[in-house]
Structures are given as structure tokens and as C-alpha cells.
């Protein structure tokens, strides 16, 4: 696939739509043990950054942030939602998710394609969690001593989910074989 401006524009638009769609339908929220839902809404920004570069990632992050702002304002569903009406909490951190994921990917790509995708998913996701939780604390919606507990309880599983989805989507899209190129059903043949 040749790189083109048109593709960058379209991928940015379409993956922004995915992020917004995941938010609007609540499909992007996975109920979690900690009580606060996990979210995978930032994953499109990571995928977009890995496929089409940091600017595309930032644009998707911007749309994702604006969606969460609008949603917090129009249809709040959680006690922290009013905080997200502040664009410094809902938009600014999300702008950096894609570029961070891109840098992580760029540092490791090449021979180690699959690990690079995993790491970029983790980095992008953790940047999202830490910046959002940090901003929440900064504006007094959380206390700072909750910072690490929240990052651990939600940020780590979110990072895992982001890595998983990023690897699955990008590897399939680019045709990179995972698992040593073998179907897992192969293991069933010897059982």
C-alpha cells in the first residue's frame, strides 16, 4: 500500500468514528472488578498512529477527547463525568496517546514487529491513563494518593487490552503472522 495523504485523511476519519462509536454505544467500556469500567476507546488512536503516523494518531485522539467531552456534558453516566467537561482533562491527554504510541512503535519496529505493536499499545494506553488521572487529581476531582492505585487497578488491564487489540488488528491488517504462524487449533490435534 502506497502512503498517501488521502489515506491518512480517511483513516483518521474512520478510526475517529470508531472511537466515537465505541463511546456512544458504551461498547468501548468493559465493566471491571474495580467498579470503574475499563475503556478501549483510545485504541483507535493507537492503531491510527501505528498505521499512519503520529499526526493521524493525534487527530483521532482529538476526536475521541471531544466525544468524551460531549458525552460527559450531554449524557453523563458516572460520578466523574462532570470532570470531563473540562477539555484539559478530556481532550489534552488524549492528543498525546497516538504520538506516544507511535514513538514506542518506531523504537521497536523492524524485526520485532509483534512485540513493537504490544509495547506501543501499552505505552499509548498508560499515557492515556496517567495523564487523565493526573489531570483529574490536578483539578481536585481525585486526591493524589489515589493516583497509583487507579493506574494499577484500571491502567494496567487497559494497557493489556490495548496491547491485545493493537496486535490483533495491526498484525492482521499488515499480514504479519503471529504465534509462529500456526493456528492454535493445531495444539488440539495432539490432545
Amino acid at each position, binding site marked *: *500500500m502506497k502512503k*498517501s*495523504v*488521502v*489515506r491518512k*485523511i*480517511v*483513516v*483518521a*476519519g*474512520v*478510526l*475517529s*468514528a*470508531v472511537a*466515537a*462509536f*465505541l463511546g*456512544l*454505544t458504551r*461498547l468501548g467500556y*468493559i*465493566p*471491571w*472488578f474495580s467498579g470503574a469500567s*475499563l475503556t*478501549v476507546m483510545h*485504541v*483507535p488512536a493507537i*492503531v491510527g498512529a501505528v*498505521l499512519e503516523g503520529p499526526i493521524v494518531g493525534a*487527530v483521532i485522539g482529538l*476526536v475521541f477527547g471531544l466525544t468524551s467531552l*460531549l458525552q460527559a*456534558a*450531554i*449524557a*453523563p*453516566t*458516572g*460520578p466523574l*463525568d*462532570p470532570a470531563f*467537561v473540562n477539555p484539559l482533562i478530556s481532550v489534552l491527554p488524549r492528543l498525546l496517546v497516538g504520538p506516544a504510541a507511535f514513538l514506542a512503535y518506531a523504537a521497536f519496529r523492524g524485526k520485532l514487529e509483534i512485540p513493537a505493536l504490544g509495547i506501543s499499545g501499552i505505552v499509548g494506553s498508560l499515557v492515556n491513563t496517567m495523564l487523565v488521572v493526573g489531570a483529574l487529581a490536578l483539578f481536585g476531582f481525585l486526591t493524589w494518593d489515589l493516583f497509583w492505585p487507579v493506574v494499577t487497578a484500571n491502567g494496567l488491564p487497559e494497557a493489556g*487490552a490495548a496491547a*491485545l*487489540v493493537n496486535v*490483533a*488488528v495491526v498484525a*492482521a*491488517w499488515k499480514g504479519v503472522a503471529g504465534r509462529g504462524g500456526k493456528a492454535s487449533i493445531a495444539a488440539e490435534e495432539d490432545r
Partner: protein
Amino acid sequence: MKDLEFFRNATLGQYVDSRSRVHALAPLTKYLGLLALAVPALASRTAYAALAVMALGLLVALAAKVRPAFLLRGLKPALPALALIVALQALLSWPGDASAVLLRLGPIDVTLGELANSARIAARLAALMVTLGLFTATASESQIVHGVEDILAPLSRLGIPAHRFALVVGIAFRFIPILAGEAELIVKAQASRGADFGSGTRNPLRRVKAWLPVLVPLMLRALERSEALVEAMEARGYAGGLRSRLATYPVGPREKALRAGLVLFTLVSAILVSMAPAPFGT
């Protein structure tokens, strides 16, 4: 599988084509109107200020021939969350809250400050909802996109390819219903092969396992459809450059005056509402 139908409802607001004078305004003017209401609503530190903004929004709605009930109805799904916010406000005790205790239920104190805070949060949300509802009711999807284009036009003249961002927004708008259809198809295909949906499992790990097979093909489908759209756009001669536009929005002297008025109103009202003393130090 009632939850499947929900996908079809995934819209941000709804355009009400009542062909009023508000509808006839140029997109840029509508964006300025949005700011003129949203900024003071966000800056408001008392419930009164937020309610005043909401009242103003409802007045404009009348002028736009949009039924206020239509805008207020959107509040209903938000009620449980609002109740939760109010309850949390009451349950937690806030440092520095020195206001009078109104009610004491065992260990829980309900203070005047907490009550005012809850009222402010609720009123602010209502004002924002009315404002955004009014905007989407009076600006169609393509006007929203054209507005972005017009706002960014000065940047384009400076050589920054900002017009591309308007295209991004337009594509995003167009793809949300498409994704809804794709997600529905994928969920149905998986459910038909015995995947767990809607069987109400509460185990988060199992839910993650059920959603991954949806999310991954949804994103792959989105990428496949992007590829098709790239070809369609290139085949029709788009190469990322500046474009002309079929739609025009002529702006007369009265609308220009209205724009100036809206900008002024935004600034003045924001300063006024944020200067009003916040009650009880919250």
C-alpha cells in the same frame, strides 16, 4: 438481543429541519451561538447562572421552532447518573466545607454546600445539554462540517492544510452509522456461532472475552472500508489539495452584526458568571 438495536440509535443529537430563521444562519454563526451559550454555562459557579443560560437557550429554541420538550427530553437518560452524582456529593464530606448542616443521618451529613453543589452540577449539565441539543437541532451534519471548514479557513490561507481536518470530521460523521451496521452484523454473526452476548454474564473476564471478537473485526472492517473510500475519493480526483465547494452561505450585514454581538456576549457573560461569588466556598 435488545442491546443490538441500540447501535442504530448511535447519533449525536438530531437535526430538526423546521426551516426557521435560526436554521438559515451560516454554520459559522451557529458555532458562535454555540460558544455564546456553552462558555457561560461552563463558567457558571451558581445554579442560577446555569439556569439563566438554559432559559436563554430555550428562548432561542422557540425562535428556531424547536420544541423545548424535545431538548429537555434528552435529560431523561441522564437522570440516574445525576442522582448518583447528587448522592455522592451528599455521602462524601468535602474538606473546607464549613456550611450549615441541614440533615444528619447517622454518619452522613448533608450540608447546604453539598446541596448547592449538586444543584449547580445538575443545572450546568442541563444548560449544556440544551445548548448542544439546540446546536445539533439547527445545524445539519454537512453544516457542522462546513462550519469546521470555515473556522479553519484562515489557517489554510497560512499554508496549514487545515481544510483536511474538515474532511476528517465529515468522514467520521458519515462512518458512525456505517459502523453501527457493521457492528450489528458482526455481533449477529458471532452470536449465531454460540458466542456469549446478552446472556447477562457479570463476570468481567468473560465479557472481555466476548467483546474482543467484536472489536477486532470491527476495526478491521473499518480499515477495509477506509481502503474502499480512499479508492473512491482518489477515483473522483481528490489528491489532498484545496477544493471548491458547492454549498455557500451568504452573510448579510445583519448576520455580521449578530456575529459581533455573539462574540461580545460570550466574553461579557463568561466574565460575569465566573465573577459571581461561589456559595459556601466550594
